[in-house]
């Protein structure tokens, strides 16, 4: 459905996108995930047509659109600040794209009503955007993007302006709406929880490159680099010298320079005597269903451990603990440190 092939983009001497390639299937929801300045928004704007890549091609539904202006690409775009037209009512905002397509009045009214219905904003049709809450504004932006039945929905950091609680709820809501409509969507975010919530596949980006493009569980369970492992969820990236000291790890490491161990794959044991790998608890906190610990190994290497609270007595800061890896097979060897 969407093919991006070898996209490069420079802003002056700044190489923002380096050889980015993506292939996205019809109906798939994909997230471009990365820290600010990694090029994710630029890649999205290239797909939308707001930027033109310096090299590479972009194909939408088997049509090469690389040089097409945005108004001829048939994509829906939701902006970071929504870019709702403040001088138009909710209805006029949603009707705008249909009017630009000179759709007859009856059909226009019907489709606007359907779009507002989809995002549960029927009662707000005559209000101006400024009088709506952040979540409502976001839904207007979504309705406005979807009403023209675009081939692709593109969303740029669309949840940024919402407070944490509403954000989570709107992400679930968005995923449901997008799946109900069945549209192919690309979202941009720096928030890994958002990426995990809304995506079928995630493209992790840094320094203008796509580091890994895979399903959320594959990204979490089998990150291809220390960077990806650290970006999605928490990760301990242990250099080989330290990783080898844990029992049952050597064959898993298989000559790699480093090993990714998720915090929940680490067990801490107070009761037994100092054998194996030993450390000191330097910090602990309650996260709700589990406890988070920070442990300093003998040589000072910090380690994060997350332990379910059920059947576990909280370990005080300062306690000496034996550190073990619960499931060596779940550890992932990577080529280098962060």
């Amino acid at each position, binding site marked *: 459905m969407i093919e991006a092939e070898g996209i490069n983009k420079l802003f002056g001497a700044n190489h923002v996108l380096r050889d980015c390639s993506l292939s996205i299937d019809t109906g798939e929801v994909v997230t471009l995930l990365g820290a600010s300045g990694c090029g994710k928004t630029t890649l999205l704007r290239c797909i939308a047509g707001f930027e033109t890549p310096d090299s590479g091609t972009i194909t939408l539904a088997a049509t090469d659109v690389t040089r097409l202006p*945005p*108004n001829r690409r*048939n994509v829906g775009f939701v902006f970071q600040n929504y*870019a709702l037209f*403040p001088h138009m009512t909710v209805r006029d905002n949603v009707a*705008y794209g249909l009017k630009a397509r000179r759709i007859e009045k009856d059909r226009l009214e019907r489709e606007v009503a359907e779009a507002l219905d989809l995002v549960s904003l029927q009662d707000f049709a005559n209000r*101006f955007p*400024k009088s709506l809450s952040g979540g409502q504004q976001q839904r207007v932006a979504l309705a406005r993007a979807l009403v023209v039945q675009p081939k692709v929905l593109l969303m740029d950091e669309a949840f940024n302006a919402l407070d944490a609680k509403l954000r989570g709820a709107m992400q679930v809501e968005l995923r449901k709406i997008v799946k109900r409509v069945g549209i192919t969507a690309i979202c941009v975010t720096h928030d890994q929880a958002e990426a995990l919530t809304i995506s079928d596949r995630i493209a992790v980006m840094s320094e203008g490159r796509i580091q890994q493009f895979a399903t959320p569980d594959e990204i979490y369970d089998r990150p291809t680099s220390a960077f990806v492992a650290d970006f999605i969820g928490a990760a301990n990236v242990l250099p080989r010298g330290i990783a080898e000291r844990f029992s049952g790890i050597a064959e898993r490491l298989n000559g790699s320079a480093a090993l990714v161990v998720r915090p929940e794959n680490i067990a801490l044991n107070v009761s037994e005597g100092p054998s194996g790998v030993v450390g000191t608890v330097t910090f602990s906190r309650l996260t709700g269903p589990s406890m988070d610990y920070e442990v300093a190994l003998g040589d000072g290497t910090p380690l994060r451990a997350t332990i379910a609270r059920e059947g576990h007595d909280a370990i005080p800061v300062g306690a000496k603990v034996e550190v073990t890896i619960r499931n060596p097979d779940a550890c992932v060897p990577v080529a280098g440190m962060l």
Partner: protein
Amino acid sequence: MAEALWTRFREGRGIWLSVPAFVFLTIFFIAPMAVLLSFGFTEIERGQVREGTFTLKYLTNTLTDDLFWWVWWKSFYIGVLSTLLCFLLAYPLAYVYSNSGRVMRLLILILTISPLLTSAIVRTYAWLVILGGRRGVVNVTLIELGLIDRPIRMLNTDFAVIMGMTQVHLPFMILPLITVLAARDRNMEAASLGMGASRIATFFKITVPMSTPGIVAGLTIVFALSYTNFIIPQLLGGGGFTTLAVQVYEQIVVILDWGRGAMLALLLLGSCFVFILAIGLAGNRAMRWAEREAAT
């Protein structure tokens, strides 16, 4: 009422900082203005103001004078035309400015502001050279090019006055437009294009309406300046040309009829306020969307 004002005055932190300006303006602007305007309602005999008298004769004489209405209409239409001309010239320039790089922006800004460093009277005299008689720059050029046989009369016409006013007042239209256009949210336009609207539709439906505050400011300033300017009509309009502002000047300085002069000044000032208010109200209407309603 007074109590509420006093409370607001006391609560308004730092409002006393405005006291020097307030005192200055009261002594040197408001008081003389009030004295002048009061002449419009006072008996004046042989150049002597007869204090304590009150008369409406200047008001009724003026309002029933056909000449007054004719002159008012002239002032009004000259003011409106030069304001609209300013707007039509300034908007594209401000738009170009907002879409330009640093160097171009600086160039436009310098070209806009530098005329303000010269006195408006000097710039108006320049128009005498440009438009004036047989040897005027425009006529000489047109004749040399063979486009016309005889010089066209341009000086001492409405055209000359409108051109002069437009040139002198253009910066006051450009600057507020530049301010709003340069600060605008370009994502609005991207959104419009992304939804399939053409560039022209985007300009008229999104860019222009959203620059309303700058348009209102520019129209207000330029109309007030054009409607009340008395130098440009005198220099470029010629002897027979007159506007309300010119009349005020002539009545008070030349004819020494202070009563009528004061009344004309009052009517000029009052009507100017009415028009400014009308522009402001129209702007408010266009800006209904900016009012904040309670979010639900």
